[in-house]
């Protein structure tokens, strides 16, 4: 009855990992563009622009990723009158999702730059975009690296949700192998371990970077 879980089945799981990574990387790059935009709007002098950015962040941080995925998946079908593939839908959904989180992380980094830096840049008669681009963002980027790496871990884990609408990545591959072999006690723990192998080094890296930045900024930590 059924297949046994052997080397081929394990290789099938391994072959699904690139899709998990590709989706995470794509969403991270797309989300970086959206997030930078949101972070700048969120710190803009205009109240309307700030309100728009806050609304965007509230919407995407206040609703489940799964719902965002469903609305994007069926929403694209509504717009284009045909059922689109899962791939563009999940990529778009995770891009918008990570845009909200990265936007909020980077806003914090921008606001952590002391006010006199803006004033000094203004004294050099740099325009507002130039102040941001040449003076503030390079410094903010350094502070933002550890939480961004931390978010990447969160993103890799949440891409597992794409399995629910049938996008084949690591978790979906695990489901398929469970259905083929009837060995959930073997397959799902292996899937979990594979995620752990991907995510744990990144988590450690984020912690390490955080400590280094604290040391250079002279932040004292209790722990």
């Amino acid at each position, binding site marked *: 009855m059924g297949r046994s879980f052997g080397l081929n089945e394990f290789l099938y799981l391994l072959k699904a990992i690139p899709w998990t990574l590709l989706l995470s990387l794509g969403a991270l790059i797309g989300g970086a563009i959206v997030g930078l935009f949101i972070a700048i709007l969120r710190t803009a002098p205009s109240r309307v622009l700030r309100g728009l950015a806050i609304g965007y962040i509230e*919407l995407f941080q206040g*609703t489940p990723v799964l719902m965002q995925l469903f*609305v994007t998946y069926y929403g694209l079908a509504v717009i284009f009158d045909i059922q689109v593939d899962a791939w563009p839908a999940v990529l778009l959904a995770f891009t918008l999702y990570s845009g909200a989180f990265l936007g909020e992380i980077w806003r914090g980094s921008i606001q952590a730059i002391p006010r006199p830096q803006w004033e000094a840049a203004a004294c050099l008669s740099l325009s507002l975009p130039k102040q941001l681009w040449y003076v503030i963002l390079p410094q903010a980027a350094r502070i933002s690296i550890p939480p961004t790496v931390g978010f990447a871990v969160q993103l890799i884990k949440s891409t597992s949700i794409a399995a*629910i609408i049938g996008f084949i990545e690591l*978790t979906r591959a695990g489901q398929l192998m*469970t259905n083929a072999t009837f060995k959930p006690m073997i397959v799902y723990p292996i899937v979990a371990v594979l995620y*752990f192998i991907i*995510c744990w080094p990144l988590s450690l890296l984020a912690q390490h970077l955080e400590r280094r930045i604290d040391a250079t900024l002279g932040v004292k930590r209790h722990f």
Partner: protein
Amino acid sequence: MNYVFQFNVVWEHFPELLTGALLTIQLSATAMVLGLCVAVLCAYGKTAGPRPVRWLVTSYVELIRNTPFLVQIFIFYFSLPVIDIRLTANNAALVAMTINLGAYASEIVRAGIEAIPVGQIEAARALGLKRLHIFRLIVIFPALKTVYPALASQFILLMLSSSVVSTISAVELTAITNSLQSTTFRAFEFYFVATGLYLAMALGFRASLSAIYWAVFVRGRGA
């Protein structure tokens, strides 16, 4: 775009959606209470326990924080029956949510505990209080008060991620939305409204959690 939106079907079934929302609230609130208990226990173990306990807590936390919630649910629902632990879908969901929240929240609570000034603990020790008394009377309330905002956002994240438990046929808002859209073929409309309900629940939870903060830490005697 030739799609005609038909939201009236959704309004016909709106009471069912509300029932689903209520189930989500019930499930999340239970998991929040249980998860907080797990978190406090683990945080105590990690800060005051012997080395094997500390090691055990660390591996639990790292294991949960570096694997996707979806895979954790699959393990609790599909893998455990193999070793003769059978849980109903909703119980498996509750256990998975509790264990997941316990890991994230224990790190938050630990940070709160470590932020307690050492002098307080030394003073308590000088008064002859036992370790557990010190923890219960001196440490835990101020610690929870310090990290309350972080705990509250973790609780809301848990409520949002509970939508994923629909995959193991646990009954809550997403599961009910899934079955309604599959009988009415109005996927976009149903998911759109369900997303709105989740947003409302997130805002509602945030307001109630602030009210709890006020009742316990500001008006009450805790800290």
